[in-house]
Each structure stands twice: as structure tokens, then as C-alpha cells.
């Protein structure tokens, strides 16, 4: 474990010196990151490796936070950061803790990563397609440990892969917990469909019935449920507690955030503030039950439960974000969802989304879709935007599929924090939504 060798007891003792007011929160966050990337075949330089480590000390008092971060894990740097964060220095300070983390492990075999682009190209050919593309694949690993004055949860780690593909007609990105054969086939299918959809006709702007496949449903729910129910978003609109009990969607909507049930390589038992990660009901039968909260929000409201804090890196303070979103299955088969949306549109994937936190208006960008004709999938259509308000869209969901998939993983960027997010969802049907070509 790369972050062993930290004297947690001594760190906690040091932190207790600066957390000298009753409600103070003080914590030390240690992290290590490693990224290994194989760029596209025509790009130099070849293999790319990034390794970094560091820590941050944070003190929260009366609605104010002080944070000091360093790009090294050493006893001297820790003492210096402690002095920067402390509001008053103790008369007889405890000795600085010994921080002697084990060295980074040797670089693991990367041959699987190197072979991935060739595997994807072969899978595309098996689908009787061939087109120019530039594929970059990257392995991300992260180890972290949070030590507070009263808690020192188990160290956490994450490992996953990202792919970025430049195509003559656009870009495509995906996150995946592994580089299995299934991942290769899914990526090849997405790219091949994008290729075949490049000359597809555009749809006319109109209100339409829509069916979103699991990957598209996951991104939509991330934008309109997860982001809308982050406590920092809710605080912009007023009191967070006023959202509790609000009927945000129909009774078919049971949405949770559960980092403990994420794909194994990114599964978490505690969040980036060291709080226990829980199976959190965001919407139960369409009613807001428990927003995504961090310690700061939970400190100001007893109705809120911490455990959803995430950090982009040690230099930034934590903020409430989703980790692994789940929509519980309904009782509709895909055939039934399509039959209920005749003459509508089916969207397998979403390329990006955006939510205005104040007005509740959102836009989702869909790279391609298919017409639904006679309850079956018809011709391909070109890129579209789906727009609306959170309440309007969630209220319009009229069917939830019965088959869930681990799908819709992607990068979430909000307030400058870029974080990987995961989801497990079925398909959903929406009675009427504004679609523009």
C-alpha cells in the first residue's frame, strides 16, 4: 500500500492542537496519483507517466476554512503547513509526526494498455467498418488517506482507465474500470455507430417522446438529479432543508448515490473527508430524501448526512459530488418503452450535459440517435440537444426499464473540479421532451 508509513496517531495529535474550538474540524489529506498513457500512434512522445504525491491540512471553523497544501509528504512540510493553517500556535506544541511513506511501487506491466488501441481497431473491422482515428488510452490510479482528530478511516484507492478518440467528425471519450474484451466491443460499437451516423439527417426541433438507453439515462440523471441535489448547488437557491421532501419526479424514480456499490476498482468505503460512504437515497419515489452533502453542509444542518465529499486534488477544498449513481429498475422491457414512444427518438449515448443551478434549466448533447417507428428502432439521426427544466423532465419520465447496466461513466466538471463519476441504470422513457437538431 503506497500510503503506509504515516504515523496516524501522531498526525491526529498534531491536528488536535489547531482544532482548539468546540466545533472545529481539522483533517490531513494525503494522496498519491499515477497516470500512464499511451498516446495515438502518430503522437510524440511515446509512453507518458505522471506520478505525484502531496498532502493538505484543513481547518474549518465558524463557516470559514483554511487549507495549506504541499507537493511532498515530509515531516518538515507537514509542520510548515500546520503553522500556516493554525489560527493560534500552541505554547508547547507536540512534536511533528514522522511521515515516511513507502516509495511508489515499481511501474506495473503496461503491455495491456499498449495493446488496447489495436484491439479496438480489430473490433471495429469485425463490425465491417474502418475509418481514421487517433486513440489515447490512460490508466489512472489514486491512493488517499484522511486523518482527522477523531477518525482515521481505512486508506482508499481507485483504479480505472480513460479513452479519448479523435475522429474526423468529432471527439469521443469514455471511462471504464477495466480493459476487458467487453470494454473493447462497447467502445468499437460506439465509434462505429458514430461513424455511420455522421451523415445522418438532422431532426426538426419539436417536443417528442424519447427513450434513453442506460448510458444516456445515467448522464441525464447525473445532470438533473445529482448536480441539482448537491448541497453547494442547493445553497445557491436558498436553504438546503427546503429541498427535503420535495416531489422532484414521478413515483417511478428511485435514485441513489452509492460509492460502496461502484465497480470494484473504484469502490469506496469512505469519502475524501474520511466520512463513511453510505447508500444514499437522493430520490425515493420521486421525493427528495437526502441530498449529496459534505461535512461543511452537514455541520450547518442536522438533516444532512455527510459522506459525499470529493476532492479534485489536494490543492482544492472538498465539495459534495456524486460518485456512483444508481437508478433502481422499473418493470418495463425495452420493447415496451419503445412502443410507448412511437414516432419518438431513441438515444444510446450522451456526449455532454450542462445544468444552470439557479434556473434549473439544462441541456444534454446527444451525438446521434434513432427514430422509433412502430415500436422498433429505425433510421439514424444526427446530433441533437435535449433541453428543459429539471422538474419538467423528471415529471415527464413515464417508464423505467427492468434491465440495469453499469454504464454512463464519464468525467464530471463543475467549478473547476474534474472528477470521474460512475453509474448503474436501466433505460428510461420520457413522454415529452424538447429536442433540437
Amino acid at each position, binding site marked *: 500500500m503506497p500510503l503506509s508509513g504515516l504515523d496516524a496517531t501522531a498526525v491526529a495529535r498534531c491536528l488536535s492542537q489547531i482544532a482548539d474550538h468546540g466545533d472545529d474540524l481539522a483533517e490531513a489529506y494525503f494522496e498519491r496519483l499515477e497516470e500512464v498513457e499511451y498516446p495515438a500512434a502518430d503522437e510524440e512522445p511515446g509512453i507518458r507517466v505522471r506520478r505525484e504525491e502531496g498532502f493538505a491540512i484543513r481547518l474549518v471553523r465558524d463557516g470559514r476554512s483554511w487549507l495549506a497544501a504541499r507537493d511532498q509528504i515530509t515531516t518538515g512540510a507537514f509542520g510548515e503547513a500546520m503553522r500556516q493553517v493554525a489560527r493560534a500556535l500552541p505554547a508547547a506544541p507536540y512534536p511533528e509526526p514522522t511521515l515516511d511513506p513507502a516509495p511508489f511501487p515499481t511501474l506495473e506491466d503496461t503491455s495491456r494498455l499498449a495493446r488496447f488501441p489495436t484491439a479496438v481497431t480489430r473490433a471495429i473491422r469485425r463490425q465491417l467498418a474502418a475509418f481514421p482515428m487517433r486513440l489515447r488510452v490512460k490508466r489512472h490510479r489514486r491512493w488517499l488517506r484522511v486523518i482527522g482528530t477523531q477518525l482515521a478511516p481505512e486508506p482508499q484507492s481507485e483504479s480505472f482507465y480513460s479513452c479519448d478518440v479523435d475522429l474526423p467528425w468529432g471527439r469521443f471519450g469514455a471511462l471504464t474500470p477495466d480493459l476487458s474484451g467487453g470494454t473493447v466491443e462497447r467502445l468499437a460499437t460506439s465509434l462505429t455507430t458514430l461513424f455511420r451516423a455522421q451523415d445522418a439527417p438532422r431532426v426538426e426541433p419539436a417536443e417528442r417522446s424519447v427513450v434513453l438507453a442506460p448510458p444516456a439515462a445515467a448522464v441525464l440523471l447525473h445532470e438533473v438529479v445529482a448536480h441539482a441535489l448537491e448541497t453547494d448547488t442547493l445553497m445557491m437557491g436558498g436553504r438546503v432543508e427546503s429541498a427535503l421532501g420535495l416531489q422532484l419526479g414521478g413515483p417511478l424514480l428511485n435514485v441513489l448515490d452509492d460509492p460502496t456499490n461502484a465497480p470494484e476498482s473504484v469502490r469506496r468505503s469512505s469519502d475524501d473527508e474520511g466520512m463513511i460512504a453510505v447508500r444514499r437515497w437522493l430520490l425515493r419515489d420521486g421525493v427528495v430524501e437526502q441530498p449529496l452533502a459534505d461535512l461543511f453542509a452537514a455541520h450547518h444542518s442536522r438533516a444532512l448526512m455527510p459522506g459525499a465529499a470529493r476532492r479534485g486534488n489536494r*490543492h482544492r477544498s472538498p465539495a459534495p459530488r456524486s460518485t456512483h449513481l444508481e437508478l433502481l429498475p422499473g418493470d418495463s422491457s425495452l420493447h415496451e418503452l419503445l412502443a410507448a414512444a412511437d414516432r419518438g427518438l431513441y438515444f444510446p449515448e450522451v456526449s455532454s450535459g450542462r445544468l444552470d443551478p439557479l*434556473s434549473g434549466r439544462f441541456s444534454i448533447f446527444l451525438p446521434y440517435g434513432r427514430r422509433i417507428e412502430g415500436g422498433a428502432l429505425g433510421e439514424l439521426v444526427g446530433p441533437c440537444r435535449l433541453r428543459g427544466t429539471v422538474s419538467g423532465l423528471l415529471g415527464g419520465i413515464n417508464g423505467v426499464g427492468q434491465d440495469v447496466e453499469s454504464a454512463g461513466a464519464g468525467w464530471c466538471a463543475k467549478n473547476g473540479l474534474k472528477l470521474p463519476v460512475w453509474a448503474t441504470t436501466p433505460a428510461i422513457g420520457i413522454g415529452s421532451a424538447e429536442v433540437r437538431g
Partner: protein
Amino acid sequence: MTGDSLASGVVEALAGRGLKDVEVFLKSGRSRRFEIGPQGRIASSSQEEGWAVRAGSDRSSLFVSGTGRPATVGPWPDPDGQPLRLPPAVAVPLWNPPADLEAPLSGEIEAIRLLEAIETSVTSELSGARLLRGLLDEGSSQTSILSSRGIDASYRGRAASLFVEMAGPWPGAETVGVAMARREMRSFHAPTIARRLVDRLLLQREGQSPDRDRGEFLLGPALGVRLLVALLPLVLGGGSEAIVRALRDRRGRIGSELLTIKDDGRYRGGILEAPVDGEGRPTRETVIVGEGRFNQPLVSWNEAQGTAVGASGCVRRPSWRDLPRVAPSHLYLAPSPDVKVASLLTAVTRGYYLIDTQGSGRFDLERDSFRLPVCGFALRQGHAAVPLAGAWLTGSISAWLRGIQGVARDIEFEPWSGMIGSPTTLVTGLELRRNPD
């Protein structure tokens, strides 16, 4: 071990592995960040230190980066992919470092006062307006580049950035934001920033859009900047030849005689002002478009080899984590030193003064068209007559470039991918529409 001897050790170690071209990039710095928002008041301080090594032979290459200082023992993966060629050293013209490099970074009280002053100024004019998020960053850095081809360069830099997001008190209000960058936090002027926010908020509430209208358009710096950002594919080489061919008229011009676009890595007082670029090559002024005629795109030393154009010294490397890439440093539409905005304003008998954008807009260089959401005022006889908002400035990019009838002296830079600057311009040949489709 000093930075230089350490870097020399790395160069030697990698040369011993058959990698004859080796470059060591070292960057360290400190920064402060102050935030007012839904997470309370946050004061952060960071000390950052990182390095990057590019190395290659005629057959393969690698890129490795990390925190702290590089070690001669690596980790060095087996090189892979494409060969790597590093630039040879050339003489760097004399450069006088800016005087403010020694100025201390701002403190917490100073920063919070600035954010509070902006909020107070806005609310004194617009009761009930709310500061949703205010963010101030300030930092200084030192960079060194040493290579096996004789590059040995060091330079320092400093920058401050401000982001403020506010909302009006009326129902359905959307957020309004301002993002700025200066060399020092002390250069931000609270009343000016508040004025811009108040204008935007009031226009959002009171502004209306005509169905369709033409006339003379006075485009404020924010619009000029946004249009220049859309022209980046023209500036950055690659596909610039095809774009120039499409935009060029019978006289060989792509724009009005008043159109001169430059990039300058030594722009006096600029945030990215430096003697060398991210590969240690000298920076310089590059005229991209001179009096309406396309001159050359930005090109790296490698791209310039065997061509008639000169290398621009324009390879940017914002962090040690980033690979060097061609990008603007200070890209701007050259101002006319003798022309006041007021003189352009009074020259408009019937038209619009567009002061800001209200979204990102859509630009299509291939189809030579753009649509940009804007706000401002309708002008009658040089005076503001009616507030304008929710309108789209539409037309062809070539019409905008050729329709520039006047350029003022009030250049302003905004932080994008590099600093992009524009003065106020007077343009004809464009159209305002309520509905962009």
C-alpha cells in the same frame, strides 16, 4: 544537488539508456486562493513543485513527470511510439523582467475585502442581488528548462485571476459571471467589476431583442475576444491554409484593412510575458494577420523547419504536468492608439452597442457562420436608447472580418487558452436575431 546539476544527472542517466535527446523541465511556485461561496469562506495556500522529462531517440520516446525533484533513477519506462526531436538552443534576445515579480502575494484580509467590495457595490445599485461565488487566485512561479541540445533557460512569472458569479433578485434570474486575469490581485478594481456585473444583471432583466435587425454594431472587447477565440483554428496552423482559402477575397484579403491580429509572448505587462516559451525557445511578436492579409499561423520550431515562415516561440506549457503545445500567449486584435470608444459611439446613427456575451455561442469555420448570444443597447444618434438582451448576433465570420469599420484603443484581455485581447470595434454586415435557428 542544485536544479542544474540534478537536471544534468538526469540527462546523463537517460543518455546512458540510448536516449540522446533529453529535456528536463522544472517548475515551482506558490499560490493563494480565496473563495466566498456556498462552502463558506475558504483561504488556501499551496506550495507546488514538479518536474517533467521528455526524452527520445530516432526510434521511440517517453514523457515522465512528477512532484518534487526528478531522480536519476527514474522511474523511466521503456520508451515507445514515435521518435522525438528537441529544439536546438538559439540566442535569446535581451529581456527585462517585469518589476512586479518581487511584489508579495496578497493576504486574506485584502482578498476578502475586494470580493466584499464588489458585492457591496452591486447590491447598492441592485438591491437583493446575491454573490453566488467569488474566487481570487494569485501565484508566482519559477521555471527552468535544460536540455541535451544546449537549452538552458530560466524565467519567473506571476498571475492573479478573479471569477465572480452573481444573480439578480427576481424569479427565474440566471447567473451572471465575470472572469478576469491580471498580473497582481491589487490590479482588480472593484467598482469597475461591479459596474460590469450590474450592467449584465439589469440587461438580463430589462433587455429585449428585435425579431431581426441590421445596422452598425459597436462590439465591446468581450465580443471581440469571443470572436478571436473562434478564430483559433486559423491562428494555430494545422488546418489554417484551408480556412484562409475559404475566407480570402479577390484582393487576397481575409479582412478589412483595420484588421491586424498578433500574438506576442513578450507583450509588456502581459500575464504570460516571458523571454522563452515552454521549450526554451525565444518568444517574439508574430503578425498573424496584417492589415487584412493573412501572414502566418503560430508555428513551433519543428513546424517551421523547411518552410518560409519563422518559428513563433509560441509553445506553451502551463504546468509541469502538461506536454508542450502550440498555443497563443497574448493573442490580440491590434488597437488604434488614437481612436476613443466615444468617437466610434457617436458615429453610429442607428445600430447597437453590444457590451457582452450571454453564452458560448456556435461557430462553424467550415460553413463560415456564427451565432453568439449578446446583450447591450440599441443606439440612436450615438446614444443608448433601449436595453438589449436575449438576442443573437449572427452572420458569417468572413463578413465580420471584412466589416470592421473602426477599431478603438481600449484593448482588454481575457483568460482563455492563453490571454486573448480585443479593443472595441465598429462592424457592419451582421444581423441580430431573437431566434438563432
